[in-house]
Structures are given as structure tokens and as C-alpha cells.
């Protein structure tokens, strides 16, 4: 299994600390989830803000599944492109430079002696024909054409291959031979995949930010709608945290339920996407593989945490403005 990309690994490491934190705070967390029915009753149900929070969390959960899937798919793509091209090289022997068979033998001997080369193999006429077929059509008489001889080189993954050293030796022994270690192909592809992955991460951050903003606005609307309730509770000696808790708990649970529903819908949608086997192409690879299917399960608790932090902050800020 490939290692996780650094930002995802960091996010997972941060989230991995959550269970330990929850275990330490279990009594408080359970108390929070259980709530105080009397305190909850003191704050009346807050109408449209409940639906707004549920809908927002649901929509954001749904989008987060796709952003996560995009991020993971581009990571896989970058890794695949990188690996496939990084561990191979191609040696091209010119067509019109003397005896091609002798040159091929020399090239294979040199390659076999080169550290970091796992395997070197000259392409057969059939393989050459297959490569040229998209341009020249089938049944090409490859043997009669001045086609360069290609040697496919597979590299070891221990990093000992020295492309510059091999090029220098080839220049001395096989002038005209060209070694292509795929760097100029690999770099833009890996870079493009990396940018797509960054976009996926940015999309997730934007989703988290938008969720926090929307829930903060909903919480502020609920607090404003309950200004009289808050005033009465303060006058009879309620502490800010008592009043805030009723709002915070309500919004946290709504965000968790909304995000859970959105995540479930998102996962179903991802499962219904056509597979790469049936359709091919990059976008059809958008999905989860292996442990990746577990990652979306973090979305509802993350949405709840976002709602908890943003509502608590909004509630305490609003309450502090009261006498």
C-alpha cells in the first residue's frame, strides 16, 4: 500500500488524536451528548435555523465526500504516473547508423553492466509495429522502414541509476544513441496531478470554512431570535456557559446528523459512478479504494466539531454583549 500524501497524513494524524482526546474527555462528551433536558427546554426550538443547519451540513458532507475522493484519486494518479515513468527509461538507437543488431547487442551489454538497471530488453518488430500502428495503420512493413531500435530499460528502485554517467558512456561507445529517462514527461504529469490534489485539499478546506460560516450565521440568527429568552435567563442567574450549552449542543447534533446524511448520500453517489474498467479515463477513477472508504466516516465528526467550535464561539460572543 502506498504511503499517504503528506497533507492527508497530517490531517489523519490530527484526527487520529481525536479518539484519545474523546476517551480522556468521555464523561464530559457523554454529558454534552446526553444534554440537560431542562436547559434544552429553556431554549425554544429555533425554527428555520434548524433546517438551515441540517441542510448546510448535509450539502457540505456530500461535497466533502467528492472533494476527498478527488484528492485521493489525484494522489493515486500522481503516484501511478510517477512510479510508472520513474522506474523505466528508453534507449533509442538510430536507424541508419551501421549495423543495428551489433549496436543493440553493445547497448544491452552496456546496460547490463550499469548499476541501477534491473532489466534491459530490445523491443521486437511486433512491439515496434504496435507502437507505430496508431500513426501508420496496421500491417506496416516495419522491417523495411528505417525505424530506430528501442531498448526498454527497467530500473531498480534503490536509486543507484546514474543517467548522466550512462549517457556519457553511450556517447563514447554508441554515438547517436539517445537515452530518455522520462524526466521531461514525468515532471509535468506529476506536477499536474499534485496541483489537482492540492485543489482537492483546498476544496475540503473551503467546505469546512463554509460550513463553519453557515452554522455560525444560523447560530447567530437563533441567538438573535431568542434574545428575550437569553435576557430572562441571565437575569435569573444563568451563567453564559449554561445558556450557550443549550445552543451549542443543538447545533452540534444537527451538524453531525446533517453531515452523516450528506456523507451517506455522497458515498452512494461515488459507488454509483462508472468503474474505470467499463469506461476508462481519469474521472472514472474518482472513488475510494481500500482504507480510503473509511476516510469519509470522519466527515460527520469533523462537521460536528466545526459546528461545536463555531457555535460556542458565536454564542459566547453574543452573550458577552448582553448585560
Amino acid at each position: 500500500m502506498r504511503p499517504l500524501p503528506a497533507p492527508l497524513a497530517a490531517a489523519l494524524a490530527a484526527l487520529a488524536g481525536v479518539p484519545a482526546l474523546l476517551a480522556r474527555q468521555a464523561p464530559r462528551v457523554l454529558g454534552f451528548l446526553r444534554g440537560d433536558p431542562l436547559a434544552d427546554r429553556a431554549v425554544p426550538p429555533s425554527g428555520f435555523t434548524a433546517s438551515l443547519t441540517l441542510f448546510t451540513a448535509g450539502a457540505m458532507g456530500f461535497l466533502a465526500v467528492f472533494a476527498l475522493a478527488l484528492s485521493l484519486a489525484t494522489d493515486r494518479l500522481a503516484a501511478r504516473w510517477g512510479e510508472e515513468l520513474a522506474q523505466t527509461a528508453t534507449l533509442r538507437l538510430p536507424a541508419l547508423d551501421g549495423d543495428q543488431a551489433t549496436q543493440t547487442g553493445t547497448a544491452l551489454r552496456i546496460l547490463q553492466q550499469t548499476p541501477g538497471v534491473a532489466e534491459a530488453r530490445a523491443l521486437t518488430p511486433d512491439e515496434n509495429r504496435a507502437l507505430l500502428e496508431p500513426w501508420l495503420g496496421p500491417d506496416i512493413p516495419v522491417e523495411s522502414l528505417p525505424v530506430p531500435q528501442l531498448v526498454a530499460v527497467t530500473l531498480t528502485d534503490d536509486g543507484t541509476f546514474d543517467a548522466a554517467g550512462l549517457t556519457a558512456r553511450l556517447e563514447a561507445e554508441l554515438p547517436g544513441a539517445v537515452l530518455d529517462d522520462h524526466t521531461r514527461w514525468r515532471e509535468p504529469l506529476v506536477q499536474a496531478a499534485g496541483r489537482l490534489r492540492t485543489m482537492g485539499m483546498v476544496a475540503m478546506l473551503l467546505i469546512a470554512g463554509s460550513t463553519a460560516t453557515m452554522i455560525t450565521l444560523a447560530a447567530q440568527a437563533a441567538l438573535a431570535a431568542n434574545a428575550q429568552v437569553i435576557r430572562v435567563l441571565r437575569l435569573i442567574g444563568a451563567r453564559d456557559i449554561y445558556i450557550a450549552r443549550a445552543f451549542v449542543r443543538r447545533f452540534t447534533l444537527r451538524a453531525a446528523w446533517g453531515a452523516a446524511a450528506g456523507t451517506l448520500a455522497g458515498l452512494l453517489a461515488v459507488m454509483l459512478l462508472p468503474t474505470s474498467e467499463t469506461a476508462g479515463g481519469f474521472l472514472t477513477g474518482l472513488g475510494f479504494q481500500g482504507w480510503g472508504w473509511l476516510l469519509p466516516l470522519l466527515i460527520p465528526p469533523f462537521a460536528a466539531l466545526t459546528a461545536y467550535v463555531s457555535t460556542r464561539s458565536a454564542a459566547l460572543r453574543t452573550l458577552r454583549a448582553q448585560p
Partner: protein
Amino acid sequence: MIEFQGVGYGYGGRRLFSGLSMSLAPGSFHFLTGPSGAGKTTLLKLCYAELRAPEGRVTLWGQDARAMDRDAVAMARRRIGVVHQETQFLDHLPVAENILLPLTVAGRLAEGHGNLRELLAWVGLASQAGQLPPELSGGERQRAALARAVITSPEVILADEPTGNLDWEMSQRLLTLLVELNRMGKAVLIATHDLNLIRAAKQQVGARILRLRDGRLQAAGADL
């Protein structure tokens, strides 16, 4: 318990009062009177730290109100029962739950259930316990507010025009309730310009009468 030392307050450049000093001691009974706009309600709000005095010093149980944080203010308010001029309830909760609210927020609800029935009977609301506040008459709301103010057995009871919405008979009844509480050792401060109420009270209790006029607090006596 509550002390004012040289307190001044004003709104929007208009000075309501200044150099105001007074003390609410356990078992004391005060009437606060004066013309409308003299600052009676403001003075009461300073007592429970809804307002902070920019001049002078208000102390609640020895703590300077200006230096109290919000939790300390909440704790002090649990020792004060307030009957507001415009009674304020949570309209979605029945009367009984509204009366129990101060105990609920203080985490002392278990203490209240035994007293609730007796208290409801005492304020004459036994049959209205399950009704919502908007369904009560003005007088019933005033009595419910009084019940809520005393459910925690506070040390101080502040009442702002508590008889404003009541007929004479109901006013008498409410006064009797406050006098009874005072006899139980509670400090009572009633802001009112109902002189008949003050005269009636003087026959029942040794009330001290304070008059807020021209920005000063004066002791009033025989002229009332």
C-alpha cells in the same frame, strides 16, 4: 449585602443622579419613590449589576460590581429575586416551569418541587400552574414573577412597580406577601410611586422610604 457609595449615573449626557449612597441590610424594608424618569429603575438595575456605575462604587456582598466577571454577576443574581415592572417569562414554558427556572439554572431543581405547590398556593396560582404565561392576566403574571423571585429563597428582593398592573385588592395581597418575606429576614426594596401602597405598608412593617428627586436620594417621612 448591597451598598452604594457616592454612585452617579446618567444616560446620553443627562445625569440621573449622583453622590448616591445607601445600603440594603438583611431584614431591611425600603421603598424607593420619586417622579417618573428620576432613575428608580436604573437604581434597581445597578443593584443586580445589569448596569455598572461609572461613578462611585456599588458592592454586592463585598465585591465591587465593576470588577465582577459575568459568572460572578450570575452568582450574585442568584441571591437576588427581581420582580420587574414588565414581567418577563419564557412564554413557551408553563407557569410552574417558569417559576422553577432560577432553581433550574442553579442546578438546585430538586429543592424546588416540594416548595412549588406551597408557593403556587401562596401566590394564588395553584390552578394556573400548567398554563403558559401569555394566558395569564396582568395580576397573575405579577404574582408569578414574585413566586419566581422568591423560589430560591434569595437574600434580597427587588420589585420595580410591582403593583403597576394590579387593582388595589391584589396590590394589598402582593404587599402582604413581600412583608411576610421581609419578616423571614429578606431585604426588600420596592420602587413605586403608589403612595397608597407605601402608606399601607407602613402600617405593617417598619419601612424606610427613600425619595429620588433632582438627582439626589433623600429620606422621606411624614410628608408621605
